[in-house]
């Protein structure tokens, strides 16, 4: 395997205080590695040592096989994307100028910078003509966060460091941005180090997770499913907290399960046709109406259809509770619970209806996960079986 970032016995000692204690880690190319742990565990310090905002006391850092422990830090940082909490956009510069920060430092010519800015705005789903000349305060928190990501991607760095990037936005926007970022990562395939203190975020975002302990060392560094089903020690177990079974739902993406197809029809199909469709669909008391672009719009029952009039656009219940294919089953379950009809609607990038996830789908996935775990336990390849997993396997 090709390792993009390698840390070798990286140590940081502040006067009278240990911050990071001999952390070694190999990060494969194209993966998201999440550093997670309680505050003061050294996760942020480790991240900032990779771009040498904090100089290590001892140890070495290799990026793409090259020892960068002593190279010029400014040159090094221009090769590494950096996204911080609170985003850190420069308020006196336009969105375009903000995004162009690193290309300008690299002395690209003007046309190339302008083209790159537009390309990046498109990439994060914002219209360049609308946003190019705006200032950060004119944008919402979520939009600013996307600009922060676009700015970090500006010079197409192979490595990105993200320090609690979604820490400063509200929970709804946060989950949306997380899913969006995962979709973006599918396109750009960067090697990413990501710091968070939120276990759920770590499980959702990470290809691998490094759990830092109070002793400033890594307690466990592995894939999330392994960490969840087989925590290395008591600290990791405590840190993951209760409800590991529920957390495991973070590991299954909506695109990995078979979607149920709910009876759907077009908004302007006409009342009689809709009523017929609902009668044909046995066992379903609601019909999902989609608009002319195929996006979910309303849930209607037979009672809604009995009322006269042909306009369906404000009848029944709004079709909220949407998830995207790269959302997790945890997201889907969350949506489902708050949904009007007990299922989450799956839509693609353009918002077009794909199918639904209902409680049966989730239960099937839970059973599969449990089977997998049982299979592993039977093989006996685990040296420390967490009690919870055993109980779960027995039931």
């Amino acid at each position, binding site marked *: 395997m090709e390792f993009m970032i390698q840390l070798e016995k990286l140590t940081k000692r502040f006067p009278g205080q240990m911050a990071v204690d001999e952390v070694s880690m190999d990060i494969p190319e194209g993966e998201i590695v999440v550093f997670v742990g309680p505050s003061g565990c050294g996760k942020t310090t480790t991240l900032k040592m990779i771009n040498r905002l904090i100089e290590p006391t001892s140890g070495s850092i290799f990026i793409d096989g090259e020892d960068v422990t002593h190279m010029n830090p400014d040159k090094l940082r221009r090769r590494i994307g950096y996204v911080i909490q609170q985003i850190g956009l*420069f308020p006196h510069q*336009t969105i375009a100028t903000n995004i162009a920060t690193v290309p300008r430092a690299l002395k690209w010519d003007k046309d190339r910078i302008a083209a790159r800015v537009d390309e990046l705005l498109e990439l994060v789903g914002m219209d360049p003509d609308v946003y190019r000349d705006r200032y*950060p*305060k004119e944008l919402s928190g*979520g939009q600013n966060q996307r600009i922060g990501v676009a*700015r970090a991607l500006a010079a197409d760095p192979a490595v990105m*460091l993200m320090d609690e990037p979604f820490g400063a936005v509200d929970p709804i926007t946060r989950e*949306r941005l*997380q899913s969006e970022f995962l979709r973006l990562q599918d396109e750009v395939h960067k090697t990413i180090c990501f710091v968070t203190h939120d276990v759920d975020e770590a499980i959702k975002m990470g290809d691998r997770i490094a759990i830092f302990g109070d002793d400033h060392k890594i307690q466990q560094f592995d894939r999330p499913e392994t960490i969840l089903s087989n925590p290395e020690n008591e600290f990791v177990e405590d840190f993951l907290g209760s409800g590991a079974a529920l957390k495991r739902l973070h590991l299954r993406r909506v695109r990995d399960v078979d979607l149920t197809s709910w009876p759907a029809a077009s908004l302007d199909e006409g009342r009689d046709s809709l009523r017929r469709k609902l009668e044909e669909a046995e066992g379903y008391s609601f019909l999902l109406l989609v608009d002319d672009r195929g996006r979910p719009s309303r849930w209607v029952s037979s009672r809604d259809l009995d009322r006269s009039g042909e306009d369906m656009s404000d009848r029944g219940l709004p079709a909220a509770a949407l998830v995207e294919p790269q959302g997790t089953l945890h997201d889907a379950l969350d949506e489902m619970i708050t949904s009007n009809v007990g299922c989450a609607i799956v839509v693609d990038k353009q918002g077009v209806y794909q199918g639904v996830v209902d409680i049966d789908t989730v239960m099937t996935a839970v059973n599969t996960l449990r089977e997998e775990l049982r299979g592993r336990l039977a093989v006996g390849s685990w040296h420390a079986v967490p009690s919870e997993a055993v109980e779960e396997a027995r039931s």
Partner: protein
Amino acid sequence: MSVTSTDPQLAGPRTDEAEEAPTSALGRLLRDPGRAWSYVGIPLIVLGSWFAVYRWVSGLELDSIEQRWLNAERVTRSVVEHIQLSLIATLFVVGIAVPLGIMLTRPFARRLTPIFIGIANIGQAIPSVGLLFFLALPALLGIGPRTAVVGIVAYCLLPVLRNTMVGLDQVDDKLIEAGRGMGLTTGSVLLRIELPLAVPVILAGIRTALILTVGTMVLATFINAGGLGDIINGGIVNNRTPILLTGAVLTAGLALLIDWLAGIAQEVLRPRGL
């Protein structure tokens, strides 16, 4: 809850919250009639009072002393001298205090800060007349415009120095970290991020210094350095109210006009997006 990104709330232009930022200084001005009035009102008041004094003086029967002071050539010379001295002093103040303020906010010079602030404090704490007379001692600088400029510069250094430091200090550390973390050199971070964001506070300091300078420059007359102080003092020693009043109204009007100009400069130079 991963909702699709094509949600118009997030992707489209936010008309509800994103208040259209005024695009130009003029635009900002026109949106606020009260402020617009203060921009037109000050020069009107100043020019009006100057005109009133001119009408009053021209209606008087002037004696020979008054004629010696109140003629176009004499008054113009004083006004020009006063403006020259004030501008030169302000240039020195800015030239010394801004770079010094930048230096004192850099990590390597942090420890020196109390010393320089202390010196600047002394400069402002000593009564300006005393400072001027002290500097004018033959053993030091002697009398003349040069001494006046040096004394006034020492007196006006503090506001600019302090505002430069405060302006730079209040820049969010996160922004500096973001800049450094993306590979900007310390110089670029200073030029592109810290200074532009500190401009409003620094300009406020320079505005204060300008007004202080124009006001205290009246004292230059006592060390034979010219300026509008000549006319005021001429009125006092000769016991001639028209002379005294002309000098006083000219000085006050000049200070107001310069403050007005500085206010406009502040408005125009303020970085957009804040």
